[in-house]
């Protein structure tokens, strides 16, 4: 007689299947046009004064594209760095600490960027 815990200990998958594998590719596909749009934005902002930069960032099309860019990239970044941590860090304490910090980092960056874009857009 074996308990479910005994059966799964030290073997078996985390049962999340291919969700993150697929999400990594979806965010990669999204990132291609969004990055190109981002580079065009950077070129168009170069050399502009502060009010000019704010005005462009506040336009709905730029703001929405920029937020999509941030969502796609921070999701892609979180999964990508997680894979690297899982591949190279064997010590369990170190691994889980880094995995949690990675998640915190991605969410902090993502939320800060979106907050900034919204604040600029709403002009407050």
């Amino acid at each position, binding site marked *: 007689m074996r308990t479910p815990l005994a059966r799964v200990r030290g073997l078996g998958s985390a049962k999340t299947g291919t969700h993150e594998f697929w999400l990594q590719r979806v965010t990669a596909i999204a990132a291609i046009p969004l990055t190109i749009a981002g580079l065009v934005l950077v070129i168009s902002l170069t050399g502009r004064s*502060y009010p000019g930069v704010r005005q462009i960032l506040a336009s709905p099309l730029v703001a929405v594209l920029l937020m999509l860019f941030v969502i796609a*990239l921070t999701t892609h970044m979180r999964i990508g760095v997680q894979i*690297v941590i899982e591949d190279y860090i064997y010590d369990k304490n170190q691994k889980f600490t880094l995995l949690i910090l990675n998640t915190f*980092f991605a969410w902090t960056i993502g939320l800060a960027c979106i907050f900034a874009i919204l604040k*600029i857009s709403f002009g407050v």
Partner: protein
Amino acid sequence: MTEARAPIQRPLSPHLQIYRITLSMAMSGVHRITGLALCAGMVMLTWWLLAAAAGQNAYGTFEGFAASWIGRLILFGFTWALLHHLLGGLRHLIWDLGIGTEGEEREWFIRANIIGSIVATVLLWGLLMIFGLR
């Protein structure tokens, strides 16, 4: 009571050191390294947006850093890492479809990735110069 058992010792597959280094293998590593660098570089993007949201003074501080030699170096490196990772990602997506994974074609994709990222970075900074970096 269950007794604590030692973790099962499973055979490990041979790692990097026993393989002959190939360009595609090195590029796999570069894809990961540029990914990690971009993750760190996102801090600069966040700083830029927060500074723009905060006001003239904060934006001036960011501009000052971005215009310094270290700022320029980070931004130039970020641009190259971004374009390299972008083209590398495109290459991986194409390979995921099962296209171009054999011999000559595969090597072509690898070279296109390296040369393309450098050319695109230089072109982009050329455009930035024309549009007047401040």
